[in-house]
C-alpha cells in the first residue's frame, strides 16, 4: 500500500505556483471565487478578464489547457440545471433560433455556466498544484478545527484503503468464477459492500493504532513542526490574483 501523497488531479512539477505554501493558495482560490460570484451577470467583459487571470495562473503552474478543460467536464452534471432555465424561466420571452426562450432564463443560464466554470477551473488549478497532504497542512495553518483536519486526514488516507480493498475483493470474485459485466457487476458489489466496509475499517483501525503507538495525537508532524509556513512576501505574491479579481468585481458592480 505504498500510496503516494498525490491524488489523481495532482500534477508533479516545480513551478512557482507549486512552490507557494498551501494556505496561501487556498485563500487566494476562495477569494477569487467569491469575487467571481459577486460579479453582476450582465458584465460580460469581467468574466473575460477572469478567464485571462485563470489562463495566466495556469501558464505559470505549467498546466496545459487540454488537461484543464478535459478535467473541467466533471462540472457537466452540475450545470445541466442551466440548460433547463431558458425554458422554465418566467418573464419576457425572446426569439432565439426559432425558440421562444425566457430572457431572464437565458441570463440565468449564462450566469451559472460562467461562474460555475470559473469556479471549477480555479479549484482544478489548486488541485493540480497542491498535494492532499499539503492541503490539510494548509487548512490546519488557517486554524481549521483539529477535529475537521483529523477527519479529513483519515478520509484521504482511507480512500486508498477502500479502493485497494474493493480491488482485492473484485479479483477474489473473478478468480472464483464470477464474470462481472456492466450492470450485473453491481449485484456482486452491492452484496459485498458491507464486507468491504468492515475489511477497510479493520485495516484502517490497525493503521490508526499503529499511529497512536508511535505518538500520534491528532495532528501530523508536518503541522506542528511549522516549517514552510507562508512568509509575508509569499502572501503578497499570491494576493495579486484575488486582488485583481476583487477590483474587477468592484468595477463591474460600480458600472452596472
Amino acid at each position, binding site marked *: 500500500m505504498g500510496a503516494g501523497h498525490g491524488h489523481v488531479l495532482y500534477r508533479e512539477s516545480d513551478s512557482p505556483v507549486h512552490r507557494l505554501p498551501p494556505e496561501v493558495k487556498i485563500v487566494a482560490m476562495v477569494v477569487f471565487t*467569491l469575487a467571481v460570484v459577486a460579479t453582476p451577470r450582465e458584465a460580460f467583459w469581467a468574466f473575460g478578464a477572469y478567464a485571462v487571470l485563470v489562463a495566466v495562473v495556469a501558464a505559470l503552474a505549467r498546466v496545459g489547457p487540454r488537461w484543464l478543460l478535459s478535467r473541467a467536464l466533471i462540472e457537466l452534471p452540475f450545470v445541466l440545471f442551466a440548460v433547463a432555465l431558458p425554458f422554465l424561466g418566467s418573464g419576457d420571452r425572446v426569439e432565439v433560433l426559432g425558440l421562444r426562450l425566457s430572457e431572464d432564463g437565458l441570463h440565468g443560464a449564462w450566469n451559472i455556466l460562467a461562474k460555475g466554470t470559473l469556479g*471549477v477551473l480555479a479549484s482544478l488549478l489548486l488541485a493540480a498544484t497542491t498535494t492532499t497532504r499539503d492541503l490539510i497542512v494548509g487548512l490546519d495553518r488557517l486554524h481549521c478545527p483539529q477535529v475537521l483536519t483529523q477527519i479529513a486526514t*483519515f478520509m484521504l488516507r482511507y480512500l486508498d484503503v477502500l479502493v485497494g480493498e474493493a480491488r482485492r475483493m473484485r479479483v477474489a470474485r473473478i478468480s472464483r468464477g464470477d464474470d462481472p459485466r456492466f450492470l450485473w457487476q453491481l449485484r456482486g458489489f452491492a452484496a459485498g459492500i458491507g464486507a468491504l466496509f468492515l475489511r477497510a475499517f479493520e485495516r484502517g483501525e490497525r493503521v490508526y493504532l499503529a499511529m497512536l503507538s508511535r505518538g500520534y495525537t491528532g495532528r501530523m508532524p508536518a503541522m506542528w513542526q511549522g516549517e514552510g509556513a507562508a512568509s509575508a512576501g509569499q502572501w503578497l505574491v499570491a494576493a495579486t490574483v484575488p486582488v485583481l479579481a476583487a477590483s474587477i468585481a468592484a468595477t463591474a458592480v460600480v458600472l452596472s
Partner: protein
Amino acid sequence: MHISNGIIDGPVAAIFAALALAALTACVLRGRRDLDDRLAPMAGLVAAFIFAVQMLNFPIFTAGVSGHLLGGALAAMLVGPWVGALCVAVVLVVQALIFGDGGVAMLGLNITNMALLGTAAAYALIALLLRVLPRTRAGLAVTAFVAATLSVVVASQGFVLEYWLGGTTDLGNNLGGLAGTMAGVHLLIGIGEGLITATTVLTVAKVRPDLVYALRSLRTPAAPAVPVAGGVR
C-alpha cells in the same frame, strides 16, 4: 445535489454560510467529546466511503438536475449526528476545494442541505424508529432504510427552499415542478441509498456491534458480574 456557483444569489448564500458555520461549530464542540480511539478511524472511513459513493452521479436530463447518494444516514448511524455531520461537511469541503464539485461560494448551502439537514433528519428518524421497532436485525434494517431514504428527500427539499429564497432565475410557477422533480428523483436515489445503508449497517452490527453509534444508547446493560465469595475458583 451539489449547487454550483451562480445558481443561488450572494446574500442568500452568505446567510446560509453563516448558518452552516454556526451549526458546524456546535458539531465541533459536541463531536470532540464523541471522538475517541474507536470513533476517529471510523469517522475517517465513513467520510472516505461517502466521498467514494458521491462520485457516482446520476444526471437527470429532463429536469436538468443531478443527484447522487448522500451518506448522511450512514454517518448518523455509525458515528452519531455530530461527528456524522462533520464527516459529510469535510467531504463537501474537500470536493469544493480540489474537485470543483459544488462551488466554493455555495459551500454554506451545500453543507446545510447535505451535512446538516440530511444527517439531522436521518438521526431523528433513527432515534425514533429504534425505539418503536423491535430490536431485531429486521428492525435495524428497516430503520436504516427508512432513515436513509427520507433523509435524501429532505436534503433535496433544502435546495428547493434555498432556490425559492434566492434563485438567480425566477421560475415563476415552475417552482412547484422543481420541488416535485427533486422529491421524485431523490426518492428513487433514496431507495438506492437506503439499500446500501441497510446492508452496510447490518453487516457492521452483526460483526462489530460496538462500532454502531446509534446502538450505544440502546445497548442492554451487561449482566451484572456476580461477586464470587472466596475469590476466583
